[in-house]
């Protein structure tokens, strides 16, 4: 199947790519949105002093 990739997706915050599979008629058979990033806040906030978290989790998104 023909694949059309939109990589990266733009004009938003974050990373993503879209893979579109076209069938023989040129119609969309399926499309997939993938997020190719993970920073791990869920893990590395553990063990940090709670009063520091406001200054850490605000770095999840700077927008």
């Amino acid at each position, binding site marked *: 199947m023909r694949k059309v990739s939109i990589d990266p997706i733009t004009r938003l*915050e974050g990373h993503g790519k879209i893979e579109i599979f076209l069938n023989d008629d040129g119609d969309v058979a399926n499309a997939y949105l993938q997020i190719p990033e993970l920073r791990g806040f869920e893990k*590395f906030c553990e063990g940090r002093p709670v009063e520091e978290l406001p200054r850490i989790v605000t770095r999840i*998104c700077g927008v």
Partner: protein
Amino acid sequence: MAKLKLGLYWAASCGGCDVAVLDINEKILDVAQLADIVFWPIAMDFKYHHVRAMEDGAIDVCLFNGAIRSSEQEDIARLLRAKSKTMVAFGSCACFGGIPALANFASRDEVMRRAYIEAPSNDNSGATLPQVRTTVPEGELELPELYDTVLTLAQVVDVEYFVPGCPPPVDLILKVVDALATNSLPPPGAVIASEKTLCDECERKKENKKISRIYRPHEIIPDPERCLLEQGIICCGPATRGGCGALCIKANMPCRGCFGPPPGVADQGAKLVAAVASIYQARDGEDIARMVSEMVDPAGTFYRFGLANSMLRRKRL
């Protein structure tokens, strides 16, 4: 002078550095006069294939923010290095690892398990984890490989300039824009900020630096005129490069080191251990033990923004 070709990219980033560039407000028009932006995912629709099609060195300056912790981020860093005359590590993440580098206290597997399986709000009884390669009925899907270790930009490619800050303050960004416009950048390898520590810039009264107790920032209301360290609040100023205008200090909050180590200091955290220990005034071994236990999360505080850039780089796996 022909317009510069400017590229901006974000790796393991929050978008704050890109927003900071936009925070120069109307001066963005000056940037538009000075440069054609040829790649900037947050604001423009250029794709990776556009960059791949460029000639090497076609981009004059690339402002690269975000740390590197995946194969895609490394690939794009190398791609942009090839296509750019000048690479700038923009923001604390690209310079030192930043907040994402706190993941260096864990392994990739621990991070993924926590995020996708263990986190309390998840509903993932099948324990599904993202895979590098996934086969779907229509074909194959690929994801980049996540690394165990978060790296700085300079640990992956050659970098000409470093602009620290989380994010770099607007007037620092304007300094960089101005230097580009007037072709007056310092020699390569420079960190574009102050050559002194934050303490030099901080306007608080500094008297007798000896403390007998460490207070967590919420435990007391600090006197806004006196040095925070002298009041027992851990402030990373002594081992942090200045140039930020001491914004956090002015908000009565201690510095957490986002401008990285000052000139001449190889490991910011080690310097902070020395700085904090040197102001302890303890009566005996028991007292020392008490004070040390009052220093909560030393590694996470002293390496808050710079774990990737430290000598050890990460917690041993």
